[in-house]
């Protein structure tokens, strides 16, 4: 237990950094999504794209814009990976196989960043920098735009539109992601992260062999990888690689970047709906769930069941000694609580309860605090479920921020809440009943089950972290996970935008004595409980057969 104080110190420093910055960044985000003024560079982009940035789109047009833009992104990225040998800076890499190129294209456009391949041996600099990194900006901006549209829908009364997707997209990239990523990349370089366009170099080893060193534009990719809760790393081992995450300082910076925008979006929500307490309540639930999960995961890795953690002072297998057990456990909680999926340790080597907690965090639906954008709209969906259940208990018509939640609204939320579990459970069942699916598993028994369920859960929730052990670079797994990523991203987005349109068009009920305050500690407790109970009811059987059985054996 000698690492307890450093672990607490690291967590305290992270909390302090977030407390200092989240309110200011939240104000910037709120201004970005409500300002009526356009920057000169934005006006240039609109002229180039022949767009009217002031046109207010109905939710249908907004949703079709999201879908059209994302489809083009998938097709372009797919083409880029397939013609890689013909491109400059390809470093002699071959064309990516069709199923792998499709999986990667879908993965980066859906903000999942699931990586079936080793970046350093599969992709050249051009595809990494102009294909994957560009999509890391655009997919993050898309998620944030959708969350902004929902917040606007809740802020408007009797309106036909929810905003303009193209304006939200351009503003998110120009005002938030690009400047933040540029500063972050410089800070990462200062901590030792590599940034160049060099070809791989080789050196002779002591035993007479040859060792290749691959470097490249790592820091620029790393910055948006964390900031946009993307998670797709330059190297196969992601943030466990010393060129991608060299020191405890870079590790802390990466943790901070992962959490900054999801929490700031909740703060911005309060400003957009003109009641900061609402944003505070959402942020409190996000923070509460993450804190409890990170604490339990750290306990499991440092002092959990088993002889190894007891004797060694922590489960060290699969972890980098420069981060230690606590640094790896905190990263595992943060990366699965958000939809990031970056890793600085092998999640396959987490203790059984530790692996179960990281799986549980993804099963929550990426709300603690979730992805940039998707975390906020996921939490707001659960807030609607909470007011609905509370309304049933006291016999009142449920309402959220003055909007009455009727049959149509709760039906849409039900589709949102049920879709991901259906994808996870059906996808896992397909994988575990097909010989091609079973062939990818490294282990049998409960650990093998967890390997498969973790992969499908990661893809369906657009997380992207890999448990390890699973050989997923096969046509079967690439296609199955690609479909899970695609449906797990865009069906919820369509539902959220449909709700945004209904909220914007609806009238507002005056607050009465029986109105449930949605900013109170009681509501924070109820919302946290609803999130946990929904996941518990849905996933307990599969968790029992996987990590829980493994913990007991």
């Amino acid at each position, binding site marked *: 237990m000698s690492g307890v104080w450093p672990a607490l110190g690291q967590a305290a420093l992270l909390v302090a950094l977030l407390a200092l910055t989240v309110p200011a960044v939240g104000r910037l985000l709120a201004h970005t999504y409500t300002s009526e003024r356009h920057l000169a560079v934005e006006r240039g982009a609109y002229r180039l794209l022949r767009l009217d940035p002031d046109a207010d789109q109905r939710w*249908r047009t907004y949703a079709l814009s999201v*879908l059209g833009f*994302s489809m083009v992104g998938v*097709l372009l990225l797919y083409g880029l990976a*397939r013609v890689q040998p013909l491109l400059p800076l390809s470093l002699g890499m071959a064309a990516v196989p069709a*199923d792998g*190129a*499709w999986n990667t294209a879908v993965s980066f456009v859906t903000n999942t960043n699931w990586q079936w391949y080793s970046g350093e041996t599969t992709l050249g600099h051009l595809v990494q920098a102009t294909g994957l990194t560009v999509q890391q900006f655009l997919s993050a901006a898309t998620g944030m735009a959708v969350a902004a549209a929902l917040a606007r829908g809740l802020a408007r009364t009797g309106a036909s539109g929810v905003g303009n997707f193209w304006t939200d997209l351009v503003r998110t990239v120009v005002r938030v992601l690009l400047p933040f990523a540029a500063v972050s990349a410089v800070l990462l370089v200062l901590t030792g992260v590599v940034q160049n366009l060099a070809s791989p170099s080789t050196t002779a080893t002591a035993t007479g062999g040859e060792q290749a060193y691959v470097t490249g534009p790592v820091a620029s990719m790393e910055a948006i990888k964390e900031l946009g809760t993307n998670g797709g790393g330059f190297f196969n081992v992601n943030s466990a690689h010393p060129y991608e995450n060299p020191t405890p300082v870079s590790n802390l910076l990466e943790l901070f970047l992962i959490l900054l925008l999801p929490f700031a979006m909740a703060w911005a929500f309060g400003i957009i709906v003109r009641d900061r307490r609402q944003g505070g309540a959402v942020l409190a639930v996000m923070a509460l769930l993450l804190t409890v999960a990170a604490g339990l995961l750290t306990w499991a890795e440092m002092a959990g069941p088993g002889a190894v953690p007891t004797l060694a002072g922590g489960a060290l297998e699969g972890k980098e000694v420069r981060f230690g057990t606590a640094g790896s456990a905190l990263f595992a909680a943060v990366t699965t609580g958000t939809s990031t999926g970056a890793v600085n340790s092998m999640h396959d080597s987490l203790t059984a309860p530790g692996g179960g907690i990281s799986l549980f965090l993804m099963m929550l639906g990426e709300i603690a605090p979730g992805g940039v954008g998707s975390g906020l709209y996921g939490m707001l969906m659960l807030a609607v479920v909470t007011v609905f259940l509370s309304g049933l208990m006291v016999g009142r018509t449920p309402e959220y921020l003055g909007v009455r939640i009727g049959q149509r609204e709760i039906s849409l939320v039900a589709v949102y809440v049920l879709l991901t579990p259906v994808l996870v459970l059906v996808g896992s069942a397909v994988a575990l009943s097909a010989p091609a699916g079973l062939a990818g598993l490294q282990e049998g028994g409960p650990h093998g089950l967890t390997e498969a369920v973790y992969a499908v859960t990661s893809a369906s929730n657009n997380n992207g972290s890999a448990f390890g052990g699973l050989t997923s670079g096969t046509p079967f797994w690439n296609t199955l996970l690609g479909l899970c990523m695609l449906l797990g991203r865009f069906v919820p987005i*369509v539902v959220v935008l*449909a709700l945004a349109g209904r909220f914007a068009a609806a009238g507002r009920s005056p607050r009465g004595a029986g109105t449930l305050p949605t900013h109170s500690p009681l509501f924070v407790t109820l919302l946290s409980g609803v999130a946990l109970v929904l996941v518990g009811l849905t996933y307990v059987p599969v968790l029992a057969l996987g990590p829980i059985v493994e913990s007991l054996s």
Partner: protein
Amino acid sequence: MWAGPVTDVIFLLTTVAAFALLAVLVGVLDR
């Protein structure tokens, strides 16, 4: 089975079909 232009066409059509179905979903929910 998994190589060549036929496979490319299959994945490209899958992409277009998936987004077309999502667009249909938008239309259904807007009714």
